[in-house]
């Protein structure tokens, strides 16, 4: 049990580092890619579904603070919204069966939409300025996060099922 947790902590650290790397390398592909895809949200939803609410909340805090440290937004804003995203994604996954592909997709879409809504709302309140929607591109962030989250979770499940086969 302890070994699995440590393995997941290590994997989560690697995934967060991959998120940082994404923001380093994706710039040359154009700013639109960076607006549409929030790599840290994908990391948080993936591990929250796997490990539950407490792991999700702490990972959300870590990923959110890293995101804030590499941006000019208010430090702690993404930390707060990603903590809530991690906690509630893990919490609901433990209580409702969201394993089927369409149900998981819809669930992650709702969670990432709520996260974006919370970020936009908090940002407007704290900064007293409207959040830049980049011509509506920002609204594509929740579907992209949900799609990537579902793809990762499905791939991981298929891989582990194949490993279990004799």
């Amino acid at each position: 049990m302890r070994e699995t947790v440590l393995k997941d902590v290590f994997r989560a650290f690697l995934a967060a580092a991959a998120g940082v790397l994404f923001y380093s390398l994706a710039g040359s592909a154009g700013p639109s890619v960076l607006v549409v895809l929030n790599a840290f949200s994908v990391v948080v939803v993936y591990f929250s579904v796997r490990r539950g609410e407490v792991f999700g909340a702490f990972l959300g805090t870590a990923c959110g603070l890293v995101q804030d440290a590499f941006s000019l937004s208010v430090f702690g804003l993404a930390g707060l919204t990603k903590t809530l995203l991690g906690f509630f994604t893990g919490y609901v996954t433990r209580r409702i069966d969201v394993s089927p592909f369409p149900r998981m997709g819809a669930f992650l879409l709702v969670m990432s939409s709520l996260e974006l809504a919370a970020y936009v709302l908090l940002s407007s309140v704290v900064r007293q300025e409207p959040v830049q929607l980049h011509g509506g591109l920002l609204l594509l962030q929740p579907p992209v996060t949900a799609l990537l989250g579902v793809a990762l979770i499905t791939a991981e499940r298929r891989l582990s099922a194949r490993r279990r086969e004799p």
Partner: protein
Amino acid sequence: MPLWDRRRNILLLAGLVLFHVVLISIQVPRGQGRKSLFEKSVFFVFSPIQRAAVGTVRGVRSFWLNYFDLRGVRQENRELKDSLFFLRQESRFLQDRLELYRAESQIRESLERFREELIPARVIGIDSANPFRSLVLDKGSLDGVKRNMAVCDKFGNLVGRTIDPVSLREAMVQLITDQESRVNVISVTDRLVGSVTGRSSPVCDLRYVLASTTGGTVGEALETTGHDRIYPAGLPVGRIAAIQKDPSLPLFRKILVQPYFQFNTLDAVAVLPQVQGADK
């Protein structure tokens, strides 16, 4: 059963939320321009990871390009030689023009000093919340980078200025497209003076140009005035993209500016020496 055992997860969430609320509260109202020690610490810890990861990826890419993918190098070399020829001509022309104003020895000395103080840097990260706000460079205080130094792209166009945090080997740059950025500019032809302010989007506003002022055409180039003591005078900033009427602010003209710098050419940049008397 104690409350902690029954409601452990909810209490943990409440603790984390409280931590973030306190963190956000101590930064509001903003406007001091300095970052908290905690924020700097997170940047100091994670920026070397970012630097190492980018370095590895670039190393692999460079290895591939240098040893395996040599196709087209001859053609590229020919094009570079052509380009160098024209650049030399331009440089000679500019030196001739400068000699009209100053003695040659003074020009050489000034060019040499400028070259020594220039810090070439590479971009290792883009703002994770809004790409039009900031960048992370692979040069820090050990390389001579300080706060409030102008940053230009490889074509000499203004990109932004260095801001806190500046760590030992990395530094953050506020882009001119950031909504909190202000650059004093002058238009090249009609000499309109104003302040280029970002919108955290691809275009900027040219503010504080009175509605009674005449001149200014779409496509006219804008360059820095140097009055803000951060950006040296004469740096190309962008061009006027549109001139509109703003009913909400009838006293001023609404002018949109398209910055010259492009994200796809932002791999290498130059950090310029600090302007005399700049805020350090």
